[in-house]
């Protein structure tokens, strides 16, 4: 990963982490992306802790230090603990995570690795467990989490480690 950021964030801070990042260099897209992030959290038919588990699986796979260090307040209020976060690792199938959490992680892994080879069995389980609205929201959120974390890694300049920090889901 690039040790020094390849581009610099624009001057001026708005308080919004997306607008204040280098994504602010493209004003035509930054507002839609910020709105999408807000709706991913505030308009979700999926519980916040499940969304956060998917987001953190993506963060660890992409190796985005910023994304890995963040915990959304909504997810913690929904019961996401650090003990649970520790189980979002390879071998989660044998962990104490709930069945729907393991299924959401399998969905994220199919997306993150080779989506063309998702098994018919996993596709059937996803359709059986989640409503069409929940599955569609998970898909939209995963695309948004993945695209923005890959932006951060592509820009570079992240520290090797960051402490865990809670942030408020955008209003």
């Amino acid at each position, binding site marked *: 990963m690039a040790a020094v950021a390849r581009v610099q964030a624009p001057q001026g801070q708005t308080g919004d982490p997306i607008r204040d990042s280098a994504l602010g260099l493209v004003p035509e897209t930054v507002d839609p992306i910020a709105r999408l992030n807000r709706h991913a959290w505030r308009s979700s038919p999926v519980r916040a802790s499940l969304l956060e588990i998917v987001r953190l699986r993506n963060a660890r796979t992409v190796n985005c230090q910023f994304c890995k260090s963040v915990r959304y307040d909504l997810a913690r209020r929904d019961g996401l603990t650090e003990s649970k976060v520790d189980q979002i690792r390879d071998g989660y199938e044998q962990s104490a995570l709930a069945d729907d959490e393991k299924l959401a992680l399998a969905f994220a892994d199919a997306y993150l690795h080779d*989506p063309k080879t998702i098994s018919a069995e996993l596709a059937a389980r996803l359709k059986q467990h989640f409503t069409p609205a929940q599955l569609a929201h998970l898909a939209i959120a995963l695309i948004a989490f993945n695209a923005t974390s890959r932006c951060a890694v592509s820009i570079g300049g992240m520290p090797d480690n960051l402490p865990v920090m809670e942030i408020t889901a955008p209003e």
Partner: protein
Amino acid sequence: MPVTSANLIDQLAIAGEAAAPFEEVWRAIWNQPYVAAEILELCRLNLARLHRAEAELAIRMPLAQPLPEDKIASLLRENWMTDQRFSQVERAVLNFTEWYYISPQSIPDEVAGEVIAGLGESGFVALIEALGFIDGRIRIALIYSRIQD
């Protein structure tokens, strides 16, 4: 109808309130002024090739001006590095796209530097945003194709 990045919203509109901003992002990345939609269309087709996404390869993005089919054929035969129909910027962007597909962590500084030299800093950011959402939509389209079966 096969699911692709272009018609994915037909599957995802049921998500509710997140669907509208999701589509708004899609239009914005194709219409921003820093990277031509025709360059993004080359990237989309190259990502579709890497994903072996046949339905995606069969479509042409309505949000971009049509590309010459012989140029697309050259891209899909992986001749873009030597084919003179590809500009220096297009080659830099396609090279970056292939590194991005493997892993954004792996992108060498010189590969990113060629993109920044050709497109500027805003163009670089617009490109990585576009790659993220194009690649993501191809991935989910492949999954939904299986879910539909």
